[in-house]
């Protein structure tokens, strides 16, 4: 006996809109950005979309931020995901495309970006070998988002692929990702860094630290040696800002391209839904639209009956002393109660994203950790 969770129906009935299906959104895309808060199943959703698109003939690469071991297992990648795309075997059906998967390696990606922009290897070495590099590669606010957007651009230009599916970092702030391409240029243009970089008559810039009151202040707080190291690190970026700016513009243009589509992923709890609404709102504020909305882990309703019907049968069974039967009807009532509560919570989000393709994926009886479960999810996503 298996339950039949083919119940996405009423979600499509929000009035006043015609909805595209998720397949239509995917078919017309060359980049898919999956966004949403942490813990809603973004990574798995990205993987399933990638798998299905590959089966439909696309050459897909999925980039994930989350080093989820089980996902690598489910995709049959014995050594886990790495910072380079790895080929995943999908069914060898005729017309089937390719699936590749990789994990974002933020410091490695940052190093690649530095090397691509540095005028020569020596300058690149000075930056990446600095003792601050690894710290900063991970700590500069927005670095992960920045590198995700860089990876997206790099893979989009890679001829091996015709669809890039990217899973964004679990930020509460959608703007972190959209702003990401400009992170380094803004940083290098920062007034405080301009001070640090300001040429002095002696040409010995660290001296500036001692002469600028603000920098002196910073030095007193963090320690002057720390500041001197930081100054040396950023001085190594001299002359690279034009390249970074051009790159940032190219990535921004890609994010705004017609074939780049945003998929909002959420789950039916009040707090994650509130975040999803806020997310959608932020996207809209920046002129981006949500093309598809995936609601994961929705409790199935188990038929068209009501909570009250199931509960009254439980009461009747209890009266007759049939406790096992009562337990089974009670269980149905309980699960329907949860399903109804979730549906009530979903309404504001569905109104917010009216016009996007909405897909509801049921909560499965057990966790997604093998290719069979990925297939089950794919059937729901692309039903």
């Amino acid at each position, binding site marked *: *006996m298996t339950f039949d969770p083919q119940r996405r129906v009423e979600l499509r009935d929000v009035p006043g809109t015609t909805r595209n299906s998720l397949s239509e959104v995917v078919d017309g895309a060359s980049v898919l950005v999956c966004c949403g808060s942490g813990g809603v199943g973004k990574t798995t959703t990205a993987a399933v979309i990638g798998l299905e698109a590959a089966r439909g003939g696309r050459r897909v690469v999925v980039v994930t931020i989350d080093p989820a071991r089980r996902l690598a297992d489910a995709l049959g990648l014995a050594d886990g995901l790495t910072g380079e795309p790895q080929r995943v075997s999908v069914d060898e059906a005729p017309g089937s495309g390719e699936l590749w998967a990789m994990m974002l390696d933020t410091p490695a990606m940052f190093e690649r970006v530095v090397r691509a922009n540095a005028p020569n290897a020596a300058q690149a070495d000075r930056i990446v070998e600095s003792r601050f590099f690894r710290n900063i590669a991970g700590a500069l606010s927005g670095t992960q988002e920045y590198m995700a957007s860089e990876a997206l651009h790099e893979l989009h230009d890679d001829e091996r692929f015709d669809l890039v599916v990217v899973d964004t970092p679990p930020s509460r702030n959608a703007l972190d990702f959209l702003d990401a391409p400009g992170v380094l240029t803004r940083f290098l243009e920062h007034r405080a860094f301009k001070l640090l970089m300001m040429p002095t008559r002696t040409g010995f810039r660290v001296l500036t630290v001692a002469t600028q009151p603000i920098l002196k202040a910073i030095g*007193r707080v963090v320690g002057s040696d720390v500041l001197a190291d930081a100054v040396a690190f950023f001085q190594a970026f001299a002359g690279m800002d034009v390249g970074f700016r051009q790159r940032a513009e190219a990535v921004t243009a890609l994010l705004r391209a017609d074939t780049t589509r945003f998929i909002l992923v959420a789950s039916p709890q009040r707090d994650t839904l509130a975040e999803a609404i806020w997310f959608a709102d932020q996207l809209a504020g920046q002129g981006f639209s949500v093309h598809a909305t995936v609601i994961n882990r929705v409790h199935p309703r188990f038929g068209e009956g009501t909570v009250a019907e*199931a509960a009254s049968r439980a009461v009747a069974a209890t009266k007759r002393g049939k406790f096992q039967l009562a337990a089974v009807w009670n269980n149905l009532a309980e699960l329907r109660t949860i399903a109804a*509560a979730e549906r009530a919570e979903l309404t504001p989000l569905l109104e917010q994203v009216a016009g996007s393709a909405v897909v509801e994926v049921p909560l499965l009886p057990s966790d997604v950790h093998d290719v069979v479960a990925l297939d089950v999810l794919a059937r729901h996503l692309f039903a």
Partner: protein
Amino acid sequence: MSNVNPLADLTSSNVVIVAGKGGVGKTTVTAVLARAAADAGQRVLVIELDGKRALAELLPDLDVRSISAADSLEEYLIEHGFKRTAKRLVSTGVIDVIGTAAPGIDDLVVLGNIKKLERSGEWDLIVVDGPAAGHAITFLTSASGLLDAVRGGPVRDQAQDVLEMLRDPERCRVLLVTLPETTPVNELIETSAALEVRVGVQLASLVVNQVDVADPLPEPGDVDFGRARAQVADALAAATFRRTRLAVQVAELDRLNSEVARPQIHLSARPVAGLSPDDIAALAEELTR
């Protein structure tokens, strides 16, 4: 866990930092612990770090404060002789630069702020709704990281003070939250190892949120539905679904028990999609049983 009074165990340090993967219910557990301690007569302060307003709504009568890195840094600067320039340092964004020059300083000043509140002695318990997924480890390692990087000055002193608090189990513990499912349990196992090794912080009991406490359901095939036909298939499907999920839960709780040698405290799942202050109060009672 039979000998452990959950509330006594969870309130045995001055500060409890609640951590866990996104979606496991960190905020819920923060609220439940604060509620239970306050109802037991303790003076409780609740701290949230990511600007969400949820906790104030769940705990309308408690002292809930929001601490941000920017405010903490400003406060820190004022206390360290930058009275006149602190505002300007913040408004011109120089703060961001400081944060970058010394990675982790934003986390450190937040922890320093918590330490200051702890030292004030105004509260019996400070519950911190920890940073979001993945950030918990970097947040808590900020002090030891800066201690390595900074050789002198106020930051180093601050890092030392914070580390002292983190490593004293009477002053501070980390409460890890998970769900009785595979992925969150994996996450907890990884986080617990990293925290103990890299931070040296003591773990409180583990809290497993949304545990299904339903009585075991009968094997659907064994149930006699009599002459009923309508919705019987739905009831059977629902029973199979629930039994499968319960089996996963049992297996995952066992696995957690064998992988992480800490007592487990279970909070029961409630049949709602968002909790109210009443739900929090009911869950808080589970801690005092």
